[in-house]
């Protein structure tokens, strides 16, 4: 497996606070990789650094061997590296289908393509994906009127619509009904298997991450604390000490 994303010694400081300190990790193509760590350990900062929300202070970030740390958010997204947000973000004033239509990948299309009418094919695909995440019946509702969990599913569908090579998910199951979590895990796995999307997931729910990821990185205090297979991580005393708590 070739490395799709390589983070090499990146550091990020906010004022005096070190949020990330020389973190290196690799996400192989086609894999599902997890990222765990206590609150404030720098997970979201790392995500933001990768997708271009803030410049990094040191190190390099490569996607398909291409340095992306100097690129802007939309440029990185157009390379096929997408992220979802912890506080779900959708276009509340558009209906579900429109949310998907506007998320369609335009990576290889010129700007003027914006001035074309929507084709039937886009709509078909949008409906397929809504079906896939279980929102087909809600397709004509305004996205802003959906419940939080449904919005999460919609955001996931939007990401799929964009046909990314790699998808970074920030706590996909936070605030979702436990029963639905199973469904979500299933869809994530299917997205990985059927659409070939590499996944990189921040997650607090250990049950989810242990089920989902093949390989897990654990951050603490801005540093990489441990990495390994789920079983190894779960048994790692440092991780238990820093994160799971001994009780």
């Amino acid at each position, binding site marked *: 497996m070739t490395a799709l994303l390589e983070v090499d010694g990146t550091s990020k400081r906010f004022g005096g606070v070190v949020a990330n300190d020389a973190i290196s990790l690799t996400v192989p193509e086609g894999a599902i990789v997890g990222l765990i760590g206590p609150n404030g350990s720098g997970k979201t900062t790392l995500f933001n650094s990768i997708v271009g929300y803030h410049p990094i202070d040191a190190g390099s970030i490569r996607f398909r061997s291409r340095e992306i740390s100097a690129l802007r*958010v939309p440029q990185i*997204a157009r390379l096929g590296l997408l992220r979802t947000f912890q506080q779900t973000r959708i276009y509340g004033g558009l209906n579900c289908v429109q949310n998907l239509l506007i998320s369609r990948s335009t990576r290889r299309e010129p700007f003027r393509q914006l001035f074309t009418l929507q084709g039937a094919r886009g709509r078909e695909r949008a409906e397929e994906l809504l079906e896939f995440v279980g929102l087909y019946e809600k397709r004509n509702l305004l996205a802003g009127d959906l419940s939080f969990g449904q919005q999460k599913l919609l955001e996931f569908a939007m990401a799929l619509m964009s046909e990314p090579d790699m998808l970074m998910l920030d706590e996909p199951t936070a605030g979702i009904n436990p029963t639905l979590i199973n469904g979500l895990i299933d869809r994530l796995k299917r997205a990985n298997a059927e659409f070939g999307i590499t996944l990189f997931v921040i997650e607090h729910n250990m049950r989810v991450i242990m089920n989902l990821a093949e390989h897990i990185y654990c951050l603490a205090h801005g540093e990489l604390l441990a990495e390994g297979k789920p079983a190894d991580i779960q048994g790692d005393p440092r991780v238990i000490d820093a994160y799971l708590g001994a009780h």
Partner: protein
Amino acid sequence: MNPQKMFLYGAIVLAGLAGPFIFPNNQVQMTELWLFIVFALTWDLVGGQMGYNSFGNVVFFGIGMYACAVVQIGLVYDVGEYTAAKGGGTAFIFDLAQYIWGFAIGLPVAAMLAALAACVLGSLVLGMRGHYFAICTLGLGIAAGEIAAGWDWIGAGSGMTPAPPPHDIDNVNRLFYYMAFALAVATFATIAWLLRTRFGLAINAIRDDEDKAEAMGMFTTRIKVTAWVIAATFLGAAGGIYGNLKRFIDPLDTAFSGATIGVWMVLMAILGGKGTLWGPVIGAIVFQVTKELFWTYLLGWQRVALGVLIVVIVVFFPEGIVGRVRQMFPERFGPRADAREGAE
């Protein structure tokens, strides 16, 4: 387009064409109304559909007004001499051909210059978010007016009189009416079409969550600037017509009139319904009628009434007329029942 709609649009166009013959005494007010519709529609494209509330669109209006007047005059006379005469001087006479050519060149130049200004200013200020954008555009509007008021070549604070119409045209206001009407129709058609394209979805997406749009790979700044440029183009042309309609350009009261037209365009869009296609049109009509009634029946108190109206609209009626109708008849006019639905 279904037959019902076709009939409707046909009826409007016919009514618009026949307007000056049915109400010859209200020709100027109707001209103004068409221009108001352009103001409200173009404001709404950026403010309502894209969520960038601008108080500075009047910049493009003013630029267009001056540009058109300068071209009209400059084709025939030296602009500096003309303005130094302060609009006076019987020597400055335009014959029919000169006058018509003045418009034929002046209006496109007005539109293009306004678009250019939108492109330059937009790439600078559209990076700002939320209220900083609103305030910055407010500053731009006032600064532009003050600069125009200090610039002698265009008459500075003494204002500028656009080319006087030749005596061969016996009803020049009718000419202005049809120009305004054509512009309003063109603006409406363009925006209606835009809202059916991906571009329409894109600016709506920016309104709803710009960070998300960026994260999904949209070059939002480029889209925002494009939207502003489109708005500015029509607004610039509208300015060109408006200056000629008023026949006297005061830099602060007519051209860069942020406190009147600049605010009115926002009010009209809100009154009719922000972020809808028909809202600005309806808002402009209702606003113009109300304003005229105030000026007629509330002498001396009309501005008090206007102030109260502003507060009432903004505080109690923020969803606008179209928004209210949608709330009341969700099946018929609900959020889905807009122009975009026909786009499949």
